């Protein structure tokens, strides 16, 4: 066997100091040489654990082999065979806990950089637009499917069903399609041009996109079925922000991460006053939470001119759910981490603006239901962090709007829609669900996987009814 090459090629990135001042993409992507060197490290092991690690089962060794052979159209074809949004997934998937963690070379500490290669191939495809022959879509058979929500789940379900010959309409409540890809994940991590290209692709398949259409208000699921849609797919995500429920939370200067990121990403407040929507940036900003949403909020705040940005997290670094790469990026950009710290109350001045946050030190106890060690407050350790802005990034749950206006739909106490884990079929006739609305906040790739399985089941159902 050839000697193992453990020299994982790092990703070229914008310099940490420089990128603090712009919203341009941080990771710059592999050059051709870098991509080929990285691909050549793959030992094409027979067990192919990476495929099982991928939530949508991409033939990873296959596309890497095509990269080595410089057959880029083939590499792109293999990727797109299982993943219709590779340019997005290559950028935002948590590879370190999916395909890369199980890579045979992972045991030696140098797994193949699968995500970076995926991004490389997808970007090549976007630039070169090869004529990958799409299987000719079958003639529309007249059956109609309504897809609610245009995040990764909705876009995937719509594309799959359109390719199968159904007439698909996407109803989106906001004025722009893309869901979290558009309003949540910032430009410097996922350029919006890429999301737009993916949306255009879905529309090119004949999908009708109806924006400004909030289902549950403009019309209900029952009405969509009554006017002649043969099936409905719910991809409405988990868009309801959670708050800390501690005193002082409604002071001025306190944002939910959803609001902060929506102002910046969807409404482009970072270009105010050219764009009309403003956003406040404090000098000292604390972001509460340890996931991707917290990292994104902190990194936006530093780019918009905050002097100091803290991530306040109640467990330790190890338990943080954010992608490793983004934690490293955040640190390089000067974000400071306060671990084992939990807010107790927010303090304001006479004008109702936040000036500080009283916190408690925490320690880790036994693992809880999530498998992570449970944080326990240490009594008497109160201290105050001075700040003039706080961003609460605790996570989100599904918006109750659809569930409360649809007959016979079942939800859990967390507000997620009850549906079959594999097929996404809800207990309501003709209605499927997939993505965050079914699982609670999860990942782009799992939303896409769920949508794909649901689309297959919808197809199966419509063929027989």
């Amino acid at each position, binding site marked *: 066997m050839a000697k193992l090459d453990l020299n994982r090629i790092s990703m070229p990135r914008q310099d940490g100091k420089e990128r603090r001042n712009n919203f341009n993409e941080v990771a710059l992507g592999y050059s051709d040489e870098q991509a080929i060197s990285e691909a050549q490290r793959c030992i094409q092991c027979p067990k192919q654990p990476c495929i099982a690690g991928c939530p949508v089962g991409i033939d990873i060794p296959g596309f890497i082999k095509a990269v080595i052979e410089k057959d880029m159209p083939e590499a792109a074809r293999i990727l797109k065979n299982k993943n219709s949004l590779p340019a997005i997934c290559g950028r935002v998937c948590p590879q370190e806990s999916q395909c890369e963690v199980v890579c045979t070379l992972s045991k030696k500490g140098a797994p193949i950089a699968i995500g970076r290669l995926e991004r490389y191939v997808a970007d090549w495809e976007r630039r070169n637009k090869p004529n990958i022959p799409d299987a000719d879509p079958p003639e529309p058979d007249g059956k*109609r499917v*309504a897809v609610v929500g245009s995040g990764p789940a909705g876009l995937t379900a719509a594309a799959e069903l359109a390719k199968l010959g159904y007439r698909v*309409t996407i109803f989106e*409540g*906001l*004025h722009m399609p893309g869901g979290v890809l558009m309003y949540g994940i910032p430009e410097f991590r996922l350029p919006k041009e890429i999301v737009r290209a993916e949306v255009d692709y879905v529309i090119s398949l004949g999908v009708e996109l109806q924006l*400004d259409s*909030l289902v*549950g*208000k*403009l*019309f*209900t699921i*029952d*009405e969509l079925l*009554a*006017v*002649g*849609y043969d099936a409905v797919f719910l991809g409405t995500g988990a*868009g*309801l*922000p959670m*708050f800390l*429920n501690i005193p002082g*939370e*409604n002071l*001025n*200067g306190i*944002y*939910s991460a*959803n*609001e902060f990121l*929506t102002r910046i990403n969807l*409404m*482009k407040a970072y270009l*105010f*006053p*050219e*764009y*009309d*929507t*403003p956003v*406040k940036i404090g000098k000292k900003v604390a972001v509460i939470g340890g996931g991707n949403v917290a990292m994104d909020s902190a990194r936006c705040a530093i780019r918009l001119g905050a002097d100091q940005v803290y991530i306040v997290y109640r467990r330790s670094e190890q338990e943080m759910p954010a992608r490793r790469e983004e934690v490293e990026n955040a640190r390089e950009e000067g974000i400071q981490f306060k671990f084992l710290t939990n807010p107790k109350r927010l303090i304001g001045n006479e004008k*109702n603006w936040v000036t500080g946050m009283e916190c408690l030190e925490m320690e880790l106890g036994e693992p809880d239901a999530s498998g992570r060690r449970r944080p326990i407050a240490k009594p008497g350790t109160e201290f105050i962090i001075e700040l003039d802005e706080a961003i609460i990034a605790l996570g989100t749950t599904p*918006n109750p*709007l659809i569930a*409360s*206006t*649809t*007959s*016979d*739909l*079942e*939800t*859990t*106490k*967390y507000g997620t829609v009850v549906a079959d884990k594999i097929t996404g079929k809800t*207990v309501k006739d003709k209605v499927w669900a997939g993505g965050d609305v079914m*699982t*609670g906040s999860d990942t782009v790739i799992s939303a896409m996987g769920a949508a794909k399985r649901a689309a297959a089941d919808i197809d199966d159902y419509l063929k027989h009814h």
Partner: protein
Amino acid sequence: MGDDISPIRHEQKLADGGHTCKQAPEMLDKGSNLILLKEDLAPNIHLFKLNAPIISNKVRAGQFAIIRIGEKGERIPLTFADWDKEEGSITIIFMKIGTSTHKLALMQPGDSITNVVGPLGIPTNIEKYGTVLCVGGGIGIAPITPIARALKAAGNKVISIIGARGKELLFWEDRLRNISDELIVCTDDGSCGRGVLVTEVLRELCESEQRIDRVFAIGPAIMMKYCAETTRPFGIKTIASLNSIMVDGTGMCGCCRVSVGGQTRFACVDGPEFDAHQVDWDELLSRQCTYIDEESYSLREWRRKQSNTV
């Protein structure tokens, strides 16, 4: 998430009101948001009638739309002042105060508003209460009108009180007079009707022999706060429509959060109407001022650009 969670079964509830659309899916097309009619009601107060057939079919009193003007525009909430199902139109009335409303005021019949989403918010709870007072202050005259109309249709005795700084800022008096059993007009400067604040009239009515079953108040937050203080000692249930700053209007951001009875509520989805005696008015008033500096900067910049282009 575990499997042990017992599911909650939701009862059938049609979207706010249960007018089921019976059209074919093509007919779910939202229409063009085309401006059909523009009326200048007062110096700085304008009315637009828009083509929006599906929305017009769904709106009920107390609900609002969020609109956006141009690709660089912000999302701003405006209440439905009227709607016509037959014509497929909705009517909004707005006061020109900042950048977005200045931009809107420049639009003309034949233009289309980039985005209109709605109907948002929970409709007014219309019942036969008995005698109701509808108080509209300033631009609040517009949103109180459909509520007064619905209350009247539900069999209430409706007394409307409207107020503005001066005669020139009053509008829709005739409309409200036709809808209401009684209309009392006040102006701060006494140029029309009585020269007192609406809260003064409200207090007099609360003190009078007449039994008042419910009060609805819409206007600037400070006016609604004092309406609440006026009716509180009399124990008359008072509903106010909160105008907190909003972004999405769908419950996604929490920007619009208000404290009601010590609990955080989202005005866009839990409201906009709440029990005025339970609202933390000072919190609302201070949250409304969050972007005061940015708003005046934005308007200055917009004016500068406008004068450069003419």
